[in-house]
């Protein structure tokens, strides 16, 4: 359920999102320096796309301000977002760029002091994910039903792992889950060494460590994106080989019917509510609305800039699915409304 406060914020956000460009001061950011605070260490994958996006934002923000990227890793990403939430300048010159950990907020994890609903939303992007498995273990989709394999993961409570394991449960796969690998770079090394047999990969990880020509592992299915109404979106171009099915299609192939049941329902909610805006650009609460709307427009322009998308593809991998401003605001306002039946399934999955 939306609270009165969140509805008001939603309305305000949407109103500013649709302000005509002419109403925005062209020279608001001229000569200014904007700071982006990133929760990742310099040189990490997240840092690379943060810096690239900042570079293109500079071009699309009227007045062409300088964007300085600051890395504030630590505290599992909480330090960076806490800093922006508590200390960020209200004039629109400080933003958080990174993973805002909705599941940590819901769980009231130690150290979380920020309230995402109170922060200004510039924009957000989801993550394309796939299930990677060794070819010698599960050579094709039909072998999944009888296969007995180990899935290496980041940790059972990690949002990507929850989604991935919900998908495997939806398919009825028989697997043993071993969490504790720090990230996909370690999981892929363990897959290559045959220590574990499978893992849940983000698209950049798949491209970086395996790609379509890998002899070792292949994507068995990928996690399709949904729009605000729950309708599936088409497969991103160049993301995965043409014959890689969606989870929905994989279920149909394996069981001859569409997926259903509590795992599937929990999967859909988790995917649409938490995984469709994993990366967000957020301002401190009470930020100047004119500045925010300029930034929102610039972000949408960047997301549609062919040069940016080409640069992203050549330097990092296939670009993530970018959300509209409206979609971003809605996700940030409604992520806490987890139905109780979903909560029960997620609790089970998180204790694997």
């Amino acid at each position, binding site marked *: 359920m939306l609270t009165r406060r969140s509805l008001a914020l939603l309305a305000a956000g949407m109103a500013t999102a649709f302000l005509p460009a002419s109403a925005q001061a062209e020279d608001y950011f001229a000569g200014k320096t904007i*700071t982006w*605070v990133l929760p990742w*260490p*310099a*040189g*990490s*994958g997240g*840092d*690379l796309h943060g*810096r*690239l996006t900042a*570079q293109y934002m500079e071009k699309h923000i009227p007045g062409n301000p300088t964007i*300085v*990227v*600051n*890395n*504030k*890793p*630590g*505290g*599992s990403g*909480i*330090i960076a977002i*806490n800093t922006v939430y508590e*200390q960020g300048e209200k004039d629109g010159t400080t933003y958080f760029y990174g993973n805002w950990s909705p599941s940590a907020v819901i*769980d009231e*994890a*130690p*150290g979380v*002091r920020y309230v995402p609903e109170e922060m200004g939303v510039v924009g957000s992007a989801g993550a394309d994910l796939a299930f990677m498995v060794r070819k010698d273990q599960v050579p094709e989709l039909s072998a999944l039903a009888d296969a007995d394999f*180990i899935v290496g993961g980041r*940790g059972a*409570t990690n949002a990507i792992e929850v989604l991935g394991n919900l998908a495997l449960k939806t398919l009825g796969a028989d697997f043993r889950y*071993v*969490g*504790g*690998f*720090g990230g996909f*770079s*370690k999981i*892929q*090394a*363990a897959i*290559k*060494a*045959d*220590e*574990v047999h499978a893992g849940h990969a983000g698209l950049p990880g798949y*491209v*970086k*460590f395996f*790609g379509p*020509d890998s002899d070792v592992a292949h994507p068995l299915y990928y996690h399709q994106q949904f729009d605000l109404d729950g309708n599936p979106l088409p497969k991103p171009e160049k993301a995965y080989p043409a014959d890689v099915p969606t989870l929905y299609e994989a279920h149909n192939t394996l069981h001859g019917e569409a997926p259903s049941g509590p795992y599937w329902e929990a999967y859909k909610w988790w995917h649409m509510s938490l995984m469709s805006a994993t990366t967000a650009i957020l301002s401190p609460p009470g930020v100047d609305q004119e500045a925010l709307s300029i930034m929102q427009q610039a972000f949408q322009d960047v997301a549609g800039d062919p040069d940016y998308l080409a*640069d992203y593809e*050549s*330097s*990092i*991998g296939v670009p993530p699915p970018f959300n509209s401003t409206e979609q971003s605001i809605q996700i940030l306002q409604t992520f806490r409304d987890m139905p109780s039946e979903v909560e029960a399934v997620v609790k089970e999955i998180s204790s694997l």
Partner: protein
Amino acid sequence: MTLDAFIQGLVLALQWPSFGFLLLGIVIGIWLGAVPGLGGIIGIVLVLPFTYGMDTLSAFAILLGIFAVTSTSDTIASVMLGIPGTASSQATVLDGHPLARKGEAARAFGAAFTVSAFGGIFGAVILAVSLPIALPIILRFNNPELFSLAILGLAMVGSLSGKSVAKGLAAAAFGLLLSTIGYAQDAAIPRYWMEQTYLLDRLPLIPVVLGLFAMPELIDLAAKDRTIARVKTAQASWRQLGQGIGDAVRNWWLALRCSAIGVYIGMIPGIGGAVVDWIAYGHALQSTKNAENYGKGDIRGVIAPEAANNAVRGGSLIPTVAFGIPGSAMNALLLSALLIQGLQPGKPMLTTDLPITFAMIWNIALANIIAAALLMVLANQIAKLCFVSSHLIVQGVILFVFMGAWLSLSEVGDWVTLMAFAAIGYLMKLGGWPRPPVILAFILGSLMENSFLLSWKIHEGLGWITRPIVIVILCLVVATLLFAIRRNTRLSQPASEGETVASANAQATGEEPPIPLASLIVGAGFLTIFAAALLPFGAWPTLVLAFPLLAIVPGILLTAAVLGREFLAAPDRAPMWQELAGNQEVRRGMAFLGYCLATIGLALLVGQKIALLALVATYLVRWGGYGWRVVAPYALATALILIGFYDRVVHVFWLKPILADEIRAVIPEGFPAWLIL
């Protein structure tokens, strides 16, 4: 075909402008390696965006220039100041710094730069010939092997870096316990975080290293009011440099063996850089004759780690280029650079793109030669700093120590950590407790816990302990401990030849005997920390408390043994307090720590730029007794570095001071606030 590609690679590496970019990368790399707290990662991060638009060869030339030479120039801080410039030059401190104190820094540089170049070239050659055979080796090092290799590293450093095996291993247990601060490996439960977000992840490495190593040396220099060298006159530096090169040539077989260790350990993802210098040092100690002088300025103690830590770079590129498995953060960045340039790691790099792979190998080899040659030329001037008043050195270094720590998380916690470990490190130094085991255990702790838990879960128990490589490595651990106990027993025998030589060397290096009360305070402190660390155990599940317990139990036993022995050994306990409290140098050292604390307080009020500038100026006037002719240029240089480098180039996230608004209010309109805030 391979020979063709090899020659083509050389031609490509020497092409203009890529060769120019290689030179630029080398210069940047030398600077970053030499300044404590910076290191190669920051250089590659800053340069990487500029490579988007470059051609492939130029992009890799500049990146590999930085990548290859930071472990050559990091020798400067290790030798001159006793501060490990980067994590891979810790073992160099043990013998390199005593050489500087004997006035033989140039000799240490001569040997170190020669074997660094040799190690780097050897690493590149092995990289070239090992590509086809490396995969089986890499794939055999799974979590159980990584865990046992980490234990070997700990055994080496714990037992070889001091006079007492018990003290070394207790210090290692303390480091392991430190590594458990923050979220547990196996559950979303933060350990020992004291409600501080700063401590939710593990403690950042750089403030801990700088606190433990750099600050005690700076305190010492400030308190003793003398030069780095304990001898008064500068000897002919060029002759020393030649002597060092001669040492390296004479010990070519040791350098070759240690280079090989560097390459092959470097190949193993995730562990190479941190332990390789210790394993090489341990190997030198165990395999050479007349080992009594190690730790007191034996040139072989410089040759071994320096040969290994340059060779490791070539080795670490093998899994990155050939299999897309980056073993370290720097390798992960190079992997990104490969993808940016449209290259795919794996088979193409060994077939169609082989000339580019060889060009990369040539870049590493050339960078090592050029960096060594450049540093040889500079070595004499650098070595002369040994004979400059310590007050001029301290202020040059403390700025980088404070800023190096701040670059970690850009939180006040960085400076608090720095000061806390400065106090611990200074007491450990006074009390004769070895500090290297703390750092290595701290670096390896999370890797050990992670690989242990993963091994446990994947193999559903301890069955992995019988894997052949694990057995071999564990045998080496036992052999290392036995060797260390035998060596220490021999050295502690009265009137042994070893002791005579050792004490003669101790006099020459100015090494002072430990202060018993300082040692007892450190031991009691460790014991208290180990005991207090047991308190939260009631609320934790087994897999969360298992690893801290592995550090605490041996930590308590070893520390209690050390305390018992030292307490009983003290012939007369009454004057112990007098010896410590009445020590003029210790009091001056404490006053220096007070200056540093005041700087942090001032920074909270008015910002870091003003506070650090004030520290430099005040110290030079009050401690050094210098006039404005010295203070003014120093202050100007400090301001230039803070603003020109850290603010404008690195874009440091500065602390927002309490009086920020008030300061902004008095700044004239149009005056850029970033100059002072």
